[in-house]
């Protein structure tokens, strides 16, 4: 239903593309409309077939036992951890230009390790400093990428580390 609603909205948006019409030529809306039409038909087909069969219809192109499937793709048990990780990532991206790459990354890695159920605080802190330093070195010294330095006073930390790495 969500796909159907989204598809209809996008079809409406495609109908309102602004362009200069050339007679006898298809416009820039033609291709997206074909895709959206296919998507809407597929969504309808999915709704109808699941209503008729009461369950998703599965093919047996690849036959796997339930045990094997569980080994490769275990069921989700902590959905809230996923959204906490997404939240941490968004906070990291917001803080990155302010507190600079190194400090933001150290904090972010500690958070990620905690969310990844690594519960050794001292080792996690030491590892996160080492990983952030290694990334800074790799990208600034080897790949020559200008990572965000932050604003004062945080940028002083970035400059000090850059000097230690020999990055100018």
């Amino acid at each position, binding site marked *: 239903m969500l796909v159907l609603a989204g598809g209809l909205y996008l079809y409406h948006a495609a109908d309102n593309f602004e362009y200069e019409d050339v007679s006898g030529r298809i416009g*820039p809306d033609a291709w997206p409309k074909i895709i959206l039409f296919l998507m809407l038909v597929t969504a309808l087909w999915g709704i109808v077939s699941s209503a008729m069969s009461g369950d998703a219809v599965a093919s047996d*192109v690849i*036959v796997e036992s339930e045990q094997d499937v569980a080994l490769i793709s*275990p069921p989700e048990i902590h*959905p809230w951890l996923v959204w906490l990780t997404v939240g941490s990532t968004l906070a990291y991206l917001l803080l990155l230009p302010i507190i600079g790459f190194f400090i933001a990354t150290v904090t972010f890695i500690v958070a990620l390790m905690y969310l*990844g159920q690594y519960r050794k605080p001292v080792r996690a802190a030491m590892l*996160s400093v080492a990983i952030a330093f290694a990334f800074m070195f790799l990208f600034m010294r080897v790949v020559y990428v200008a990572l965000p330095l932050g604003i004062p006073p945080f940028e002083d930390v970035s400059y000090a580390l850059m000097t230690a790495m020999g990055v100018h």
Partner: protein
Amino acid sequence: MAFINLMHGFVQVFQPFNMLVLFIGLLVGMAVSIMPGLGLVMGVVLALPFTYRMAIEPSVILLTAIYFAGTYAGCFSAILYRIPGEPMDVPMLWDGYTMARRGAPAKALGWALVAALIGGLVSSTVMVALAGPMSEVALKFDSPDYFAAVFFGLTTAVALASKSMVNSLISLCVGLLVSTIGIDSIYGTERFTFGVPILRDGVQLVEVLVGMYGLGEVLARIGQGLRIQQPQEMTQKVGTQFPTLRELIAIRITLLRSTIIGTLLGIVPGAGATVTAFISYGIEKQYGRRRQAMGTGIPEGIVAPQVGATASVAGHMIPLLILGLPGSGATAVILAAFLLHGVQPGPMLLEDPSTTLMVNTILASMFASVLGMCLLGFFWIRVVIKVLTVPQGILSAIVVLFCLVGAYANRSSMSDVWMIVVFGVLGYLFEKFKFPISPMVLGAVLGPIGETAFMRTMIGNGNDWTAFFTGSISGPLMAASVLALAYPLFHRLLAARRRTHPVGTTTGH
């Protein structure tokens, strides 16, 4: 002439920097394929940012080496510890692990190594030999033919990607729609930007690939609790025992059959190493001389999926180089590497003297990758397998950081990183709701090529859509596409009919 060019390619591969890159690629490929939750596509994705500052040859050598090694090393953990690093390693549990449990782990590893070596080398030889003729055919491609080739690629990807055709098609449509975001190249019209400035440039391929395959996969793993089965006997001595020549001759039909299946399925877009491994195993189980014994730890059960998986890589690489059409997630990333270096793969690559050496270097690196991964597999198993002891919490933090910083490194743009998060969440939701990711990614990659060919054909033929069906190349390709789409439906109807009327029951009089 082609052989001499290939030899020139080998000379380039053996340059110190290229050799170093190849070695690193093989190690990375082995490590990511052993570790559940990473996988070869993620390995290729994570390596992509390091290619930005490299020349095109070492860039593609690095990614190709990861791709090849990724189809092989997962067998170590599957055979020794019953931990499949990738879905493609699942068939290895049935006979490989069983053989190891029966007291012959070294022999099982030896069979897998020989299978990877033979599958990789034979398939690479066949595909390199076919590259020239394929290029000749590709040069004759017109707009309708290109559209038909893209259409065929997308339909087979949909047909093979998932258990649910509906989900595959929707995934494909999402990918195709993503590729239309931004300013249209023919009319200069803004499409689906909704006034958001960062969408005006369109969505970068790197954002889709890194977000969907990298961040999305980590998010899904975090939701699953980042659990992996810990190996019980990590301290056990791991070695490799090669099969004898007599043993090899005894399974020659399996080797031949699986190599042919792997190479042919490699050419078919969407049939990645996983599908090929399962199909090779399934065919061996159905038609093999010792089909009754499959699953009890016999060499055929190890050789068939391993040969198929490794052989499929060469099969994927040639259509990418000659037609510019990727057939799998990993080749989509390699295409992105080409495009980031301003090189458009296609038939002209082999014809143009300025790019001939580059193509032959890449072709030669396929052979070097196969040989290198087998050598590393033989000597370094004990070292590589240690990757299983790295805590998942640390590993996922490093992967997330690689995704974000890698995306930033492309254009030093924070908006790219924000887009990674968007596609990462989308990738997680796809995984959660069982929508396959590969049709979406292939749609995003092939969408612009398909749209350009579609628009050119329609404008050039006065909006006559029958042009796609009447060409000598496009017609058969479109027919094959219809068959590819119809096959799963037909298969499903047949299965439903069997369920309604089971064999051995009567329905009436």
